[in-house]
């Protein structure tokens, strides 16, 4: 899927959770929302996009994808 589309989706979710929570908690909420509602291929792809250094993540969005990446690594490893 288009990288910009997925990043935008992450940032949109982050914009909801960020104002109500400290950044770390917001990131957990965002990661949880994505885990519950995104197809695994989209989650794999957003991690790859983050690993490739996409510049447009919001701070909470980036932190959320880091959580997803860690979870994926745990699952793989």
């Amino acid at each position, binding site marked *: 899927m288009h990288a910009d589309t997925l990043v935008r989706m992450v940032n949109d979710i982050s914009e909801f959770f960020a104002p109500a929570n400290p950044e770390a908690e917001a990131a957990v909420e965002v990661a949880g929302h994505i885990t519950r509602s995104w197809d*695994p291929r989209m989650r794999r792809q957003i991690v790859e996009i983050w690993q490739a250094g996409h510049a447009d993540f919001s701070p909470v969005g980036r932190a959320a994808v880091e959580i997803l990446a860690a979870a994926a690594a745990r699952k793989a490893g």
Partner: protein
Amino acid sequence: MYSIDHTDLGTPPSTSSTMVNIELDGRPFAVPDGTSVMRAAALAGISIPKLCATDSLKSFGSCRLCLVEIDGRKGYPASCTTLVADGMKVRTESPKLTQLRKGVVELYVSEHPLECDGCPADKHCELQDMAQLHGVTGSPYLAGDACPPRVTAESRAVAFEPDHSNPYFNFNPELCIVCSRCVRACDETQGTLALTIQGRGLASQVAASAAEPFVESECVSCGACVEACPTAALSEKSLLTAPAPVQAVTTTCAYCGVGCSLKAEVADGKVARMVPNRAGHANQGHACVKGRFAYGYATHADRITTPMIRATLSDPWREVGWDEAIGHAAREFKRIQAKYGKGAVGGITSSRCTNEETFLVQKLIRAAFGNNNVDTCARVCHSPTGYGLKQTLGESAGTQAFTSVMKSDVVILMGANPTEGHPVFASQLKRALRAGTKLIVIDPRKIALVDSPHVVAAHHLQLRPGTNVAMINALAHVVVTEGLVREDFVAARCEMPSFDKWRAFVADKRNSPEAMEAVTGVAADVVRAAARLYASVPNGAIYYGLGVTEHSQGSTTVLGIANLAMATGNVGREGVGVNPLRGQNNVQGSCDMGSFPHELPGYRHVSDPVVRATFEKAWGVTLDNEAGLRIPNMFEAALDGSFRGMYIQGEDLAQSDPNTQHVVAALTALECLVVQDIFMCETAKFAHVLLPGSSFLEKDGTFTNAERRISRVRKVMEPLPGLADWEVTMRLANALGYPMHYDHPSQIMDEIASLMPTFTGVSYEKLDRLGSIQWPCNDEAPEGTPTMHIDAFVRGKGKFFVTEYVATRERSTSRFPLLLTTGRVLSQYNVGAQTRRTSNNVWHSEDRVEIHPHDAETRGIADGDWIGITSRAGETVLRATVTDKVQPGVIYTTFHFPESGANVVTTDNSDWATNCPEYKVTAVEVVKVDKPLDWQIRFRQNRETRLPSRHTTPAAV
């Protein structure tokens, strides 16, 4: 003429629980206090003659046929207007009463033709019944030299010109007995007040508006007057051509989410007419122009009745048998999965199909495809409702029954236009408003309910499109800062940490009406007054529609609405609540049945091992524990090559989904698209397999409406393609190697009931017995649940969410200075596939763009001009309607005709939580042009020639 199987009780029921003892013709009876003598008699099996009375209308007392004798009372009271009293002794028959009644009938007959043969009401005419009952075969006033001649048009000095202007019913004043039932039905049942009696004495005559032809009048063609007419003065045109109906089958309308109960009156396997079921729980005996009359699409010549396949989109269609079509589809899906992986295919359930059919499609996808790539059209309408209400209250559904509104002191109507989109609920709402309920409208447009006969909104918060969250926060700010919170309710019923966090958030000055005025465009004092009104009454209810959900912050607004309702204690009893007005007939049901890619039936997440195990045991498969693709994700995945096959039942994505160019590119990229539809819809043009669908008249099943009300759909004619949709899905599953066997949809419902805790008590037997059931229906609520969250929320404690306003990225700029928003009209339905194939086009034959006079003038645009609309996504051309219904800076259009291309200009912005498209806000510029775009002209021409080469024309890709 009411339904042929209706037993009329004369006057409406009393709501009193106090019983009164009376004596009728010497026999004792007990009836509720407030009951009319006429109704009491009818309940006792005694039929008192009548003409102006019917049990859907308040008693009127004009015909003087229903006279009775009552001990201790002078004269002969009319039984329709006389209420029972304890100890009352009534005689309904006596020689004197017979003499009086016969005299009345003779007077009526003197002004009514006696040629009953060929009359559409023959054998169901109430005047005919009364004449026969009293042995009146003619009128003494018509015979003999001493009698005056029969009253004629000349002697009445009025025109007896019949009015055939309405496409669905005739008005023949010569047959009219001026009982006023039609006028009262328009007032009391529909609430339009379009009809009146004009003239006096013998010149009295029913008139629509100011004696205009019906079709040009304010009449909304709901048919209430026709149903109420005791003769054939107002009667359906269909009765003139169809055989007289011999059977009435109770079924459920397949249009909007109100879910009206209808009687399909049939003869020779065909529908002669459709009339509202007076016992219908959702509609209270009413219907609208769509459900009542626009069912002709079911037998339209455009119906696809033979399966078709083709290898590529450039090949012509080839008609084949069911086995070949289904076998081909199954082989293709298996080939794609073998080549690209299990997740490379998926499907869409239909909110127009039954619960049972939707359940089977998601079961096929989860069990036979082996993934969760299932979604439904709720994705593009009320998915934020599912998310928002589940998070806050614990259940993805509205909280009330429609009739609850009668107990509301104040109604907030937000982003909904029920007189157009949910007309039968609008009639219910108007009844409440005329009885004193106050209305607050939150909408960018001046909808009809803002100001219409005997209905004036207390406040119209005419906000800018895209600022719903700002408005909800501003309303909440007033509630919190002015001491209007129901502290006792919140403390007892809600999670206090979440409430405290929310209270602090909305109390911040940045959320005040004054601070938000610059965002919403609504004066702060008006917002404050509206908030005080809603929060200060005993019962405040919120009703909302797609104007809430189809935004980038759609879910946030739903959360905000639930916050507001909980903070003011307006959940958990009649008269209050949070009420989404669902778009399609079974969109609630399709969601209930597990059509979302992350939820199994009953809104339970696929990752829940306990829930999954229940389904795995029942279905004999291992289920995927990960969420699947949503519709827009499927499009993206199709374009990147990871998604190659799709099974779509009854959903026209190519017309209904935003950014048409993007959708078309995705559909074109698929290797196998299987479309199951009753017509060659826009999406079918990109299909490789076309499986003909069946209309709601051709199958058994159930629909679930916006009140969570499950109602039966009953077959009244055989499926035109030979198979009902549930049978087709079953065959496809079997061809895929996953065994499915059901002999009847009732067995599917039994399986649903065995797997969904909220449906445990639902069965066809119970539905037949009760008429309808609002889920949850289980051991705790064996006959259903009209009002939810009474003592506790489904999730336990209600949860508040902070709802920060985030402006949409779709902002007006110097290049795109206007905001386009979209909606519906009464006569057409969504993409128009059904209504465009009916005479409803008389009222709406093209989509137009509403533009404010100021914006029109600065661009040199006059009413009726073609205007080009350009957005960041695309361009289209529509005719202009210059009107102040829209505010400056906002334009508005409907999307019922594919050549309108409304979704060519909408963008792929979507709700953050659910990806529901942001249909309601598109930044555009408009300019006067000479003509539509070439593709639009071609499309219109093709439609007008009914696509004669539809079986051989390759898709235009």
